């Protein structure tokens, strides 16, 4: 391993290296300093065909050149230095049909071009972002989903980027954490990797964005913070989802799981426009949580009725039933840990400028308080004992975010545009320990008995009130918080030295300062063990930096009247640094809140550094502006590759054919536009930063009563480690029909991941690390996606529209490279089957042979009543295969009132009801174990896992399919006259609601309950987790 110490950015070493690359690129851009041809000017004026009003923000481009721009508030744009000759001028704008006009430019003259564009019923973005810049959608051979974020946040219950993405793009699946401020799992076109992350990467305004999941030094036992959640959706103009390697090739190593491309809002030339918004609402938990059961009975020889008999003991006679009681703190108003959460958001945005300088300024405060709230009986306890109720004890889950953004765009001259984006985010949030945390709420609230008066909390002796071992007040005395200061800055340069050349440069730095806090006063907290209540403080300070440079130059060339070419060469450098110091102190002095107040102190340091340098070359051909070919390759080096592996090359090819533009295509039919597309390409995912290295770690051990430093063999390493490589073939078609009233997209994809990194289990006998990263596997994903947008009806006073998006995914492990199947307790990775599918010995049936209404296991086959298969078999996917989302909109009163709903179906998978499993196996309070009225299905799943030798979990893998009313909203736009009463240009009021109900055969609380949704895991787990809450929000928008 090299010992070179890299100086921080700003010192001489990095800039030299980077500048070397930039200079080379500049040479590429500048060399062909050819003689300027004769020039003229085109003055474009764009108006709406229906209203004749000027159309601002229309994108004007001269086909085959780098010349173009956006129209101003008056719908005007002047293009200078246009070469003489005949040119096609293309005008596109979201909400309008594309318009193309031909002009003839003569030397020194100005051509006035008046263009009228027609609005279309279905509004789709006509351009998409690619790694080489903005492109006309027709030219791209891939399906790229675009979300109109600016519009969506105004009319939908959106708290974060995950809400923006959820159910709005085919092939994109979101699973969200259930605490306020927690992150989400995002999977695009299935799961590629067996052992590496399957999260997409994020690019914001052309620079790489930090998107770490589970971003905290202190776990919650479930969901927690994500750096994606820091970004304010209100500042986003649009989100594009680059789905597969065939589209993401030029984004390089790390992009195989897709790319989320975020574009924030920009200033629009004209007078300053102020937009103010405010929203407020409530968050409630309307879920059906399980009831706790308890059988009271007498054991043999006893005359005293005791609790905790189970059905099988009633059947065997080991216990005689006296009574059955039921209870759950969830349904006891005095004991429930669920209250009413709330959400408030206030923001102000200003946009304006002129043709030279445009600005967008934004500021917002958002605060969300989750549903968890100290129960009444706990308040009384605190009050009676004089123990103060701390803020984090009263409301343990709060997220507070302040976000400020300033985006400036300057047209320095006709050849140079410079944009500067800057974003300051301040986050202060805290989470409750949940789910799998020993001190968490879940095991207590789900695990109590079937009665309320169940004794006292161990050691401290306060009433349990139906909770298992301690009550919420103790759990919530422990604070798990986080403060984030994040600064994202970027500079985007567009340089058009020649009409045939455009060079762009994006430099950005995303820096996060993160302070994590874990604190418990001495004498507080749950009596988990003898030392917990001695108090502790953990303080972690982390710096996370994502620095990226992305530069490319493109040359356009009209090779023939029917053939345009575009050659692009580019470089990219990405540097991810993570540095963390963690200090902790335990056994605190009473009243102390610092690590220094602990009798036992500890300090650790952790670092992760990862760098990627890549180069790419792309050639695009445009034949008659209707048939487009793209051929490209990218080469990457990465600091995480093994020493024996140096470079990876990813190729790409795509074709797009606008069939409806061909002369032979029949005119005047219901088809407006028909395009076929085909793309193939590769991308990768880099290994973990240290996966290639064999190394030791420092440790401290006590030897003969002296704490002694020691070296521990930590990792075997792998010199041959290289990135995973995923190749994809994608094909499909886009159809626009019925005068723009319907749009249909269909895509088939087939992805194959080879050299899949497997964290191969190292046999325990080796006595080393538990796993070793090796490029052993192969995985395939294939599937279909479809999107339908329709304007069903538009009668002025009433309009109806609908969007349907759906997807199907098939996932399979093709090879494990001669390593054995990876067998977990619930899931397995087996060749020929989906990654981490559920496996179990199946429950094949049951029979109540003695007709006592209770199923039991008996080793004697003649007496056994629950039957289980001999060997484990595949039981199902662990994440949905099928998705279908329907968004229906109705507009009334001349479109003043819009009603919208989003209904979502997901299916084709099982969900692990681990909550019920532990209630049956350990808590002994579950329906199938204790309730005499439990169905045989529920009894069988308990007997099979508790009493049958197989201990099969089969019964707890339950149908995960559901249909959910995910969102509804009603937006009323006031007339200008009414708006003017508030001195506003426009005004609207929106009522939105999220997660209103679902239909499912799942036996647990909610098939979307998943404690691991926000920690980049592919093993969804409903384990003692509070289920998703419902939001009801009222929002006001004012434009000035």
């Amino acid at each position, binding site marked *: 391993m090299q010992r070179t110490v890299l100086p921080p950015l700003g010192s001489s070493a990095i800039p030299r290296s980077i500048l070397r690359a930039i200079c080379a690129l500049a040479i590429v851009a500048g060399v062909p300093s050819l003689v300027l041809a004769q020039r003229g000017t085109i003055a474009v004026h764009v108006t709406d065909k229906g209203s004749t009003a000027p159309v601002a923000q229309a994108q004007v481009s001269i086909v085959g050149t780098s010349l173009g721009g956006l129209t101003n508030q008056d719908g005007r744009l002047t293009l200078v230095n246009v070469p003489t000759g005949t040119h096609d001028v293309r005008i596109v704008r979201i909400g309008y049909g594309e318009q193309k006009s031909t002009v003839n430019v003569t030397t020194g003259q100005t051509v006035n071009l008046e263009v009228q564009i027609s609005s279309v019923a279905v509004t789709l973005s006509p351009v998409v972002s690619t790694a080489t810049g903005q492109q006309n959608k027709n030219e791209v051979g891939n399906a790229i989903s675009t979300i109109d974020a600016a519009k969506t946040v105004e009319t939908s219950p959106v708290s974060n980027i995950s809400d923006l993405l959820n159910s709005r793009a085919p092939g994109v699946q979101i699973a969200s954490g259930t605490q306020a401020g927690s992150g989400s799992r995002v999977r695009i076109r299935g799961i590629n990797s067996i052992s590496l992350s399957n999260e997409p990467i994020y690019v914001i305004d052309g620079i790489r964005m930090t998107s770490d999941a589970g971003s905290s030094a202190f776990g919650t036992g479930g969901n927690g913070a994500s750096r994606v959640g820091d970004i304010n959706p209100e500042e986003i103009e649009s989100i594009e989802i680059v789905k597969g390697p065939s589209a993401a090739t030029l984004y390089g190593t790390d992009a195989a799981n897709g790319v989320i491309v975020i574009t924030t809002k920009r200033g629009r030339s004209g007078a300053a426009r102020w937009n103010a918004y405010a929203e407020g609402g409530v968050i409630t938990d309307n879920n059906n949580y399980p009831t706790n059961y308890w059988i009271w009975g007498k054991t043999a020889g006893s005359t005293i009725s005791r609790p905790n008999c189970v059905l099988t003991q009633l059947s065997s006679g080991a216990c005689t039933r006296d009574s059955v009681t039921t209870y759950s703190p969830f349904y006891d108003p005095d004991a429930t840990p669920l209250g009413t959460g709330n959400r408030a958001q206030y923001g102000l945005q200003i946009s304006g400028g002129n043709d030279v300088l445009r600005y967008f300024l934004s500021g917002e405060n958002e605060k969300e308080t989750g549903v968890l709230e100290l129960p009444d009986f706990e308040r009384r306890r605190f009050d009676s004992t004089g123990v103060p109720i701390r803020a984090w004890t009263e409301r343990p889950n709060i997220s507070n975010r302040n976000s400020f953004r300033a985006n400036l765009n300057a047209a320095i001259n006709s050849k140079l545009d410079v944009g500067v984006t800057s974003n300051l985010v301040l986050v202060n949030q805290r989470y409750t320990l949940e789910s799998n945390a020993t001190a968490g709420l879940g095991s207590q609230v789900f695990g109590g008995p079937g009665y309320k008066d169940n004794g006292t909390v161990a050691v401290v002796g306060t009433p349990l009130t139906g909770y298992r071992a301690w009550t919420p007040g103790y759990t919530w005395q422990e604070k798990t918080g986080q403060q984030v200061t994040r600064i994202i800055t970027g500079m985007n340069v567009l340089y058009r030295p020649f009409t045939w050349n455009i060079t762009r440069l994006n430099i950005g730095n995303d820096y996060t300062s993160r302070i994590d806090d874990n604190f418990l006063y001495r004498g507080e907290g749950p009596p988990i063990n003898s030392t917990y209540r001695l108090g502790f403080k953990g303080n972690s300070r982390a710096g996370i930096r994502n620095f990226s440079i992305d530069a490319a130059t493109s040359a356009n060339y009209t090779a023939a009247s029917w053939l345009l070419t575009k050659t692009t060469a580019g470089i990219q450098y990405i540097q991810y640094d993570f540095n963390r110091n963690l200090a902790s102190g335990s056994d605190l002095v009473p009243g102390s809140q610092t690590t220094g107040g602990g009798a*036992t102190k500890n300090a650790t340091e952790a670092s992760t550094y990862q760098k990627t340098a890549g180069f790419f070359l792309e050639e695009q051909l445009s034949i008659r502006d209707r048939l487009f070919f793209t051929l490209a390759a990218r080469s990457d080096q990465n600091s995480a590759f093994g020493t024996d592996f140096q470079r990876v090359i990813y190729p790409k090819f795509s074709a797009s054919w606008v069939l409806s533009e061909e002369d032979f295509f029949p005119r005047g039919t219901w088809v407006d536009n028909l395009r076929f597309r085909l793309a193939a390409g590769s991308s990768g995912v880099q290994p973990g930063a240290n996966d290639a290295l064999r190394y*030791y770690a420092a440790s401290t*051990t006590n030897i003969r009563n002296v*704490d002694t430093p020691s070296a*521990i063999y930590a990792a075997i390493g792998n010199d041959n480690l290289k990135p995973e490589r995923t190749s994809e073939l994608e094909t499909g078609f886009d159809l626009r029909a019925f005068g723009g009233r319907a749009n249909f997209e269909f895509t088939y994809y087939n992805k194959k991941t080879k050299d899949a990194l497997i964290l191969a289990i190292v*046999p325990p*006998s080796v*006595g080393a690390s538990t796993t070793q990263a090796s490029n052993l596997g192969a995985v395939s994903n294939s599937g279909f996606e479809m999107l339908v947008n329709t304007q069903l009806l538009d009668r002025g006073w009433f309009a109806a529209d609908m969007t349907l998006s759906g997807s199907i995914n098939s996932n399979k492990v093709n090879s494990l490279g001669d390593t054995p199947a990876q067998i977990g307790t619930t899931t397995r990775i087996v060749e020929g089957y989906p990654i981490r599918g559920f496996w179990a010995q199946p429950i094949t049936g049951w029979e109540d042979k003695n007709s006592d209404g209770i199923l039991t296991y008996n080793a004697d086959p003649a007496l056994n009543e629950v039957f289980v298969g001999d060997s484990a078999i595949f039981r199902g996917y662990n994440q949905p295969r099928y998705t279908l989302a329907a968004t229906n909109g109705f507009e009334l009163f001349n479109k003043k009132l819009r009603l919208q709903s989003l209904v979502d179906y997901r299916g084709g998978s099982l969900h692990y009801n681990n909550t019920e499993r532990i209630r049956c196996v350990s808590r002994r309070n579950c329906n199938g174990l204790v309730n005499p009225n439990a169905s045989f299905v529920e009894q069988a799943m308990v007997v099979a896992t508790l*009493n049958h030798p197989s201990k099969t979990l089969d019964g707890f893998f339950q149908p995960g399919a559901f249909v959910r009313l995910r969102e509804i909203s009603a937006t009323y736009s006031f007339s200008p006259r009414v708006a003017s009463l508030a001195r506003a240009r426009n005004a609207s009021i929106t009522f939105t609601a999220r997660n209103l109900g679902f239909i499912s055969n799942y036996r647990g609380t909610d098939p979307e309950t998943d404690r691991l949704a926000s920690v980049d895991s592919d093993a969804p787990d409903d384990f003692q987790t509070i289920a998703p809450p419902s939001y009801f929000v009222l929002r006001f928008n004012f434009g000035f």
Partner: protein
Amino acid sequence: MKNIINGRARYRHAAVMAFAVAGVFSLASCGSATDSLLDVDDPDLITQGNINSAEGALSLRNGALDRFRDITGGSESTWLFGGLLADEWSTSSTFVQNDETDERNIQLNNGSITGFFRDLSRVRTASNQALQALKEYAPTQSAAIGEMYFARGFAEMQMASDFCNGIPLSDATTSPITYGTPQTVQQVFTVALASLDSSLAANTGTDALSVSILNAAKVARGRVLLGLGRIADAGAAVAGVPTSFSYDHTFQAGSGDNIIWAQPASSRRYTIGDSLEGNARNFLVKNVIPFFSSNDPRLPVRYTTQNSGKDTVKSQDGLTYSRTTTLYARSTNLAVTNGIDARLIEAEAALKAGNPQTMLSILNALRAAPPKLGEIQPTVLPPLTLPATMAAQLDLLFREKAFWTFSRGQRLGDLRRLIRDYGRTEQNTFPVGEHYRGGNYGNDVNLPVTTDEMNNPNFTGCIDRKA
């Protein structure tokens, strides 16, 4: 559109293409530039080059001792799980891994047992790495070398005592890794014997540390010989080891608690074993020593109570009353081998040799002057009388041993030896009957080598699950 193919344009495009391609490829081929751009130096890591020195060798020795501590009281280990499978402890946790071990019905994917076997193997690997380094960079450190052989031999002995027939012993110090083939318990005891012989041979010093390690290796060697059924040899092997001797693993708050205290007493995840289980529901468990009910001075026990002194505290599972011992506290030293072990080996050798009175004398000598055990100094115990039958004498010896060595990783191996060497059966040796969590005890008499070992190309599973 007008056809505008002309020479200038053709030249322009060719030039752009050429320079673009040349530029990109020149950058791509600038190996030194990108290499330096991609250099990283992670301060978390210690490389092999960092430890190629005498100090480095000693840090590896320390690392091996860290691993060694993990298989006794530094981490949850077979010292607790062996006691669950036998009769020292009963489960009172919420973990199925614990429950199924207590129920003697262990699944092959038991993650805890996987970890214990890995920890034992890590002692072997770390010891071997340290031995290589010590021999190269610090060859005069004979005590350290002897201690490494002792640690390795002890781990091998513990594997053979607790795990099934079919234990693979791999070697991670070779490149590529040498994967072990399944060995019988007897074969692994033989390997352990060789390691301990090497310890005795290498450790030639006369200083206190060297002598301590020497005695530790002698006692471990005696236990290995018991495992091999060479009981007379075992007695001879420990001759001369003082009763007061103890080779300890030590603990401090900053570097880890004594887990034999932390898991049962602090976290209440294990409860002292007894013949009546299920709180007051009194499920009778056959064959077991009633460690809780006996109230033996060597194992002071009590129900955990509230701060007020009233009400019985329930265990981590929220159901089972917590029965704890004050034998160990948070940082109490844990005897890996000691002089008591030596005397008990001699007692068994005497019984086996047909000298039960000698056995009784040894046992009564210990009872008359009880050595300190953990945190407690037992009171003088009344002398024992010799039962009439050999079977009863054997029961007496093993019961005495069980109290003297409580939760020190010997009970499971002793129960297995009762079956293997003394003709007992599983049904009259291990806990049987209805388990208080429902269902009956299973038939396991050892810990399995679990599913993860299937990644070893030479391993297909335990040869058998016999004692």
